[in-house]
């Protein structure tokens, strides 16, 4: 089947910032994203787990497929939100069906 090159950007960020991040992505012209749950993790700011959470907000994973030429715009928008916070941004080469959607 015909595939089209794309970039898959994955941003792990604290849950209270989710709407700020997705607003920034929308403003950067992103046409869609998918939010996936995270149940725990570890990094420079220590280890955490989501079970029985009271007062700890947890993290989410926002995944975004975009046309390669839009990558820079997206990263800049995302980075402005993520930069002062804990979280991780990674990018992978991908192929998508139905390119007209991205």
């Amino acid at each position, binding site marked *: 089947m015909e595939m089209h090159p794309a970039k898959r950007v994955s941003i792990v960020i604290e849950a209270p910032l989710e709407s700020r991040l997705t607003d920034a992505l929308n403003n950067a012209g992103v046409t869609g994203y998918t939010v996936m749950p995270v149940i725990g993790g570890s990094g420079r700011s220590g280890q955490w787990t989501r079970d029985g*959470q009271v007062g700890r907000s947890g993290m989410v994973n926002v995944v975004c497929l975009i046309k390669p030429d839009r990558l820079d715009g997206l990263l800049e928008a995302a980075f402005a939100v993520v930069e002062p916070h804990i979280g991780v941004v990674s990018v992978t080469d991908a192929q998508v069906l139905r390119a007209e959607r991205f």
Partner: protein
Amino acid sequence: MSSIIDLAASNLISPIILSFALGLLAAWARSDLTIPEAVAKGMSIYLLFAIGFKGGASVAAHGVDAKLLAAVGVGIVLSFGLPLIAFALLNVMTKLTKIDAAAIAAHYGSISIVTFVAATSVLEGRGIASEGYLVAVAAAMEAPAILSALWLIARNGTSAKMDDGLIREIMLNGSIVLLVGAFAIGMITGEKGLAEIAPFIVSPFKGVLCLFLLDMGLIAGRGLRSAKGVVTLPIVAFGLLMPLIGAAFGLGAAMLIGLSTGGALLMMVLSASASYIAVPAAMRVALPQANPAIYLTLSLGITFPFNLTLGIPLYLTVAQIVTGG
């Protein structure tokens, strides 16, 4: 004095406190006991709805007291003011950065609804009445402390990430909306409404509180274990001293507006307790540089258990002496 000890002892062997202790112990022993996140959130929604509704129904039963507005006003002032005291104290007692100090200060101006609930059930157990509208005061005290802390930061030259979105998020925080909304429903439907749903929000309330405190014990215990390096002795001392200061201010406020003995206890508890839900989330947005391990450990691991076990009996004894109740 012996009455405080008696009270503390009888408080300590209640199922509620022992459930919290079980959670602490299980966490300390590194058991894999956990309560699913969705269930914990479900229980907190239940508790907020029940406590709000009962407060509203009680106001409906006793008439809208002229003191209601005064109490809400005083609560807001306390919520704005206590962070300033906490901030000053932290600067004197500890070596924390201004940002960490301000973030902690915000927690102590706000309130812990579970501490409030635990105090309510101590009052019920002793048959001491209290003003139903203090639930509204609790809701009113959640948010102002956050603004106060952000002002402290701005004054100290660092800029916090304040935006309109954040202010709306703080004011329309789920727990505030639920508490105020349930309070309103209780006020509108009154005793009749309460009678309809009492088998859900009254009878099983204490049992749910036990499981909720089990979860809080688990989280506090796990937090304490992983925060060993971060929370120094002076910080711990602050976590024990600040509730006493808060309680003193709460008592003063209660005297000022002439609350009953039970009302005075609840006002002291609101002032003495520290937030661990609304404020931490707001701090992650507004003061991301502040270290959450410190403020969560202090609020959930030090001040919360202190208030739950020794604080409430102590405040009640003092309230009884001062109000002559």
